[in-house]
């Protein structure tokens, strides 16, 4: 391959303009996908992202608290709980905030939290949980 086959820009001003154009496009795509709050036109995405981040944190705290409680071994009998613990406490996907999978991960976490809260709130055991102010807050916030 000859040297001329390589991309060898010589015009720095054009290079700067190209860089600016590509960066602008990336900023736009990120804001549209909700990967980052930076950039114009991202206010809705930013709110959504903040909500999802909060849901994920609440889920992690909730699962951790359940696992470390005296009822932890009892909860672990259930495969679903072990999955949640594995996914969010033991090996959480502490991802780069700009990772392309970040949004999908957060949405999955929100869905898991809703399912967990619904499940905890039904049946006679739900009344016990509701004695706890923190549980009532979570229910109010997400259900």
């Amino acid at each position, binding site marked *: 391959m000859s040297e001329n086959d390589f991309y060898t820009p010589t015009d720095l001003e054009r290079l700067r*303009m190209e860089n600016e154009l590509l960066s602008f496009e990336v900023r736009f795509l990120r804001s549209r996908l909700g990967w980052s709050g930076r950039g114009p036109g991202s206010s809705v995405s930013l709110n959504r992202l903040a909500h999802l981040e909060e849901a994920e944190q609440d889920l992690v705290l909730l699962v951790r608290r359940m696992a470390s409680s005296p009822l932890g071994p009892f909860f672990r009998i259930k495969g679903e709980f072990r999955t949640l613990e594995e996914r969010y406490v033991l090996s959480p996907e502490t991802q780069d905030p700009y990772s392309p999978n970040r949004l999908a991960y957060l949405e999955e976490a929100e869905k898991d939290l809703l399912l967990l809260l619904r499940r905890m709130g039904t049946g006679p055991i739900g009344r016990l949980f509701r004695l706890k102010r923190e549980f009532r807050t979570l229910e109010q916030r997400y259900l």
Partner: protein
Amino acid sequence: MGSTSTITDAGRPVFYAGRFADRVSDASLPEGCVVLDDWDVLPARLADVMEGASTLVVLDLFSFPFEALSGVQRDVPLIVALPAGFDTDFLTTVFGKAVFERLDFFDRVATADSGAWMSLRRRYGWAEGQSIRLGNGGPDEAAGEIWALLEAESAAPTFFGDGSYEAARYWSERGDALAESVPHRAICSVRHGPDFNKAMHRVQKAALEPQFAAAGGARAEDVPFDVLEVGVGIGRWAASFDLAKTRFFGVDISEGMVAAARANFPEGRFDRLEPDLRFPCDDESFDLVFSVTVMHHNPTPAKRTLLSEMWRVARPGGRLLFLEDFVVGRWSEKSTVYPMSVLEFVGLLLEATNWQVTLEHVESLRYPHDDMTRGGIIAVSKLGVPKRW
């Protein structure tokens, strides 16, 4: 200011004669013309011949393997000669998907049957300028007529301006100079051949048409879609709209271009833009206002005026759409561009619209012949409450 060239300067035309190869070979096509029979279109041979071709003329539509054209071969402008003696329903059934739907603004249809042309033009939204009217002779005579036309187009004087660049005067004179003889040379790049311009058009079309569709949105059948193109040229983007449901209006600084656009798309409405750049339209009259490679040819004061006007005539909720070169330099007084980076342009746009817009789409474009990303699309929607209901 003007210059002429010969047909071989821009590459040679390739004639696919198929079953008529004997007759076409006997016709008086000049040297340098390539004539193919139906054995010459096996992939390897076709690829060899298509390299450096300026135009592919298909005289035997029934036997040409269109599916064998791939990659850059599709950027070679096509001229397809309609087979005589078949009605349009038959032609549409046989060639609709494989050929007609794929024809682009830089492709043309040659036929002696004006009724068939009119019917197909309406069905596929072609421009009147894509038609080549043939006599009633056979394929050999058709080949000769098409050759003569290509030769005349190559020999037609083109336009490069006469020195320093002044946007309004240059585009007005250039449009008027090219409108009669070679209107297709007035769009994209006048310095390059039709295959270069078809390739540019292909990239632009792939990026623009989804934006046109997004701007049209889901509207009821009886609600017309009002569209304004600024710098409409010969009206090539009108072909991207269903003109039965769209009220397409185009303005251009060149009277010649406006006349060519009217001839190309009689269903549209086209008007001359006066030197003060004020649009002859009421406030809030259009759902989509767009320009393609117009802004970067104008100095900043003209850009401001055009942006303000585009903003004025767009309806609240409507869209403004721009396809421009954001990576370009100005090397001399003769250069026809006023460079603007994307952020400089966005700054002007926000200023002209008083920040009353939301960003809908950003997309960079790289043309096949470029080593850098050059173009970009920016779409914004207009915020606000309509002045009248």
